[in-house]
């Protein structure tokens, strides 16, 4: 997200949605992770204004909220797409030429690792191993596994989403 769109998002941010989520946690201890989980469930990621708001309401430094959010792999600081594409970069897939598949996928989607397409339809991620080495090279889109991939097959698969 460019700086301007980020700023615009901040201006129009609906703090009431965060406030509602916070209600059950106020005046309790050790609630940071559950709060962040709730926010992520609500927004799909952790918007920066939401983290700043949490810091303000809990009266803790915002760098602390940020520290927790970046510590856990489960939290995302950028909006995620409707569909999550996970391409396996494990050894077996590597040997069977996943590099070309990954390259092609990024080219089709027009995004890099961890990024989301403009239309918010796909987020592209790479993972260490999916555990389906027999199907290498392999990827998952949401919960669906696709094996024996070639760069040519990708467009057809993506059409379903």
């Amino acid at each position, binding site marked *: 997200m460019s700086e301007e769109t980020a700023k615009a998002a901040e201006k129009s941010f609906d703090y009431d949605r965060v406030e509602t989520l916070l209600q059950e946690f106020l005046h309790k201890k050790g609630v940071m992770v559950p709060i962040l989980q709730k926010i992520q469930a609500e927004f799909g990621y952790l918007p*920066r204004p939401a983290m700043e708001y949490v810091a*303000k309401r809990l*009266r*803790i*430094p*915002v*760098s*602390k909220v*940020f*520290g927790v959010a*970046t*510590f856990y792999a489960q939290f995302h600081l950028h909006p995620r797409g409707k569909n999550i594409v996970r391409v396996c970069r494990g050894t077996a897939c590597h040997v069977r030429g996943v590099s070309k598949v990954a390259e092609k996928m990024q080219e089709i989607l027009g995004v890099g690792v961890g990024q989301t397409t403009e239309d918010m339809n796909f987020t592209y991620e790479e993972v260490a191993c999916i555990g389906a080495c027999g199907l290498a090279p392999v990827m998952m889109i949401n919960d669906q596994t696709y094996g024996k991939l070639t760069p040519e097959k990708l467009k057809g698969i993506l059409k379903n989403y």
Partner: protein
Amino acid sequence: MQPVTITLNGREVSGHPEMTILELARESGITIPTICNEPHLTSIGSCRLCLVENEQNGALLASCVTPIVPGMVINTESPRVMEHRRMIVKLMLASHPDSCLVCDKGNRCQLHQIASDLGIGLLELQRIPQTAAIEEVNPFIERDMSKCILCAKCVRACQELVVEGALDYFQRGFIARPATLNNSPLENSECTFCGVCVALCPTGSLMEKKRVYQGTTKNLVNTTCPYCGCGCSISLEVKDNYIVAARPGKVDTENEGTLCVKGSYGFDFIHSPDRLKKPLVKVNGAFQETSWEKALEETAEALNLIKEQYGPDSLAVLGAVKCTNEENYLLQKFARTVLGTNNIDNSSRLYNPATRLGLGTSIGFPGTTNCLEALEQSEVIVAIGTDPAASAPRVNYAIKRAVKLRGAKLILIDPRRTKLSSFAHLWLRPKVGTDLVLLNSMSRLIIDESLLDKEFVTRKTDNFDALPGALEKYSLEYAETLTGIKKEEIHSAARLYALADQAAIIYGTGITQHPGGTASVKALFNLALLTGNIWRNGGGIYALQRDNNGQGACDMGALPDFLPGYQSTEDLQAKKKFEEHWGVSLPANPGLTALEIMEQIKAGKIKGLYIVGENPVLSFPRSDFVTEALSSLDFLAVQDLFLTETARLAGVVLPAASFAEKEGTFTNFEGKTGRIRKAVAPAGECLPDWEIILRLANKMERPLPFSTIQQVMEEIEELVPLYEGYLDSEGKYQNEWGFWKRRSHRWHSLKGFPRFSTAEYTPPEKKINEDYPLTLLTEAVLYHFGTGTRSSRAWRLQQFSPRIFIRINEADAKKLGLSPLDKVRIISPVAELTAAVSITGALPEGIASLPASFPEAPATRLFDINLDTETKTPSLKACNVRIERIDDHE
């Protein structure tokens, strides 16, 4: 509690039950290497270097977080411990860059020291240095995270000492680093550049900017910061007669290892090329360099001539809130015995007399009643009329620590949103100038609801009977109408304050610089007295001072109405004591205060003025009037570090040594003295102020009987009851002398107990003039100080904050069609200034604020001379202005 005994390296040692193994080892003289441990930070056991072996079960324990248990058998240097310790250091080194030879941390690097102590030698590990871009945009701190070893000292310092919370860990595992929100550069974060993290960083990850290749400084000089009234101890690193860096004084000193940006990075005005190097005399309107001999001769002659022609009271002296106690003492002695006049004042006149009078008449001593350590014990803290984040950072840290770490509740009374607002339990925003109504209504409510400490009030105070009647009209409804604060809020503030077992009050120039500030101080005192909070450990009243020696200058009698130690010039007994000791008769005429001196110069009554380290052209209201007055003098001499706006008007300018070039003491706002020590030789031919005064007295043929600063101190000790015992038996300074002394000392003619005094609110006479619809508040800024004479010459401060901004509310900006950075003209009935606009949500509508510390646009100029009748303090807090945009083509 029973001491706990353990076996440490084969020897039985005992400690108290809450000690850690590391603490006990240190106490027993056993060294265990650590990196992440710091006595005043929470121990987190992250570096693992302090591993020790429990010989009973073979466990390796991090000694900094393991408490001692009876019967433990610990070995701090067993072969296993040493093997592990070496491996940990090797692992640290394996991910550390190879840049030791060019790293400016040099021999001060703890990692380097420990590696060499343990004899690490060549690494057999594969090196995986971390890479990181060096962050060096801001002028204060350079961050090179490739050298970070994750000790988290910076994170803890930021969260536990200065409670800013700009830093925390970012990410995890190998890539984890201390970082700001979003890992953005420091200048985009909450960071205030206090430099505490830099001082604690064990490696070269955090360094002062521009320290490049200066090598290791071995010479450390412990001294006292020259800026605000907190008087923090600082340690100057000196190399080749040059001050390389300043860092917080030792942890056991007052400021507990903290400083602010001015203390850490504001010292280099000392080496500014603008420093005066030689005495100057004005010949035909232009300054010429001259010798000390000639300059002093001319000064002495001129002063003697005026004295002969027009009498001693045609001379006056403005003393120095930036000079040492000893120099102020000498200066008033010079005025009273050499010149023969009581016309001596100092620029704490601009903010301090309300405290002196308000507290003096009520309690018997002129200032803060408690120390900052005690503030952290308070349950409730009332902060009114002050933004300590800018004006007294150490107080700010103490308040935040009390709130965050000890659960104190803060009642903040300020129309502006300040950095403390987010720490406040209650934040009251009174209309400007109505504090007194608020305070009186709180007092009334405390009496009405019987929340007062009856026993204390009946047994330990005087004059309570006068109070209820005087408070009659200050009902909650009345207060709500005048202050604009909801009565429920006033009610809960009053209850919160009254019901706390220990509650403290802090106030600053937002109280004392308003007309009627004395009454507000009395009202604050009434509150403290009603609730019995005045002597309690976590109670008391903290009167903040702006300048580092504002307190000391007054203590030393650089005042028209007081001899040293607040002994009145009208107290014949005191006068006699000084006359006998000094062997002269003291002037009988009452002296004039600072602004009265200006008026009398204008009236032609005062012909000669001697100014030491003050800059009235910028610091006094109506600079046009002051400039005119000073120019009309027969003779003006100025002693200063720089050719200030005032010095330019002088006939003779005498170059003075800075705080780092002389010896002496400062007294901070708590009343504690801090020692200053000579770190470098004076620039050029500069002389310490005390030496200049002595030489001048000699030239005037009325020599003062001193030749060393030590002799001055001895006389102060003898003659100033407040400073009795400030030297120890060997004649050395004692650090905390004054504080306890002050509490037991009464200077005012106060008989019996602390007194309640009534404080009546008088509404401002003038109606708001439609032509000047905005109320302008002057405020302190963190990055500059005073009139900006020194801070604008500290290059880092100047580079970071080079321009003056007027802050105005969003709604007002909209009305005036202003956008950020627009240039505007600020017009008051007496003067105008230009500044750039900064739009903020921090101010209520109708209020603008302007920092006072920019020499190019001194906010004081906008004020008319409007003296408080009691204290002769000019009103310098709020005035009415209008704002006009300056279009680009103009």
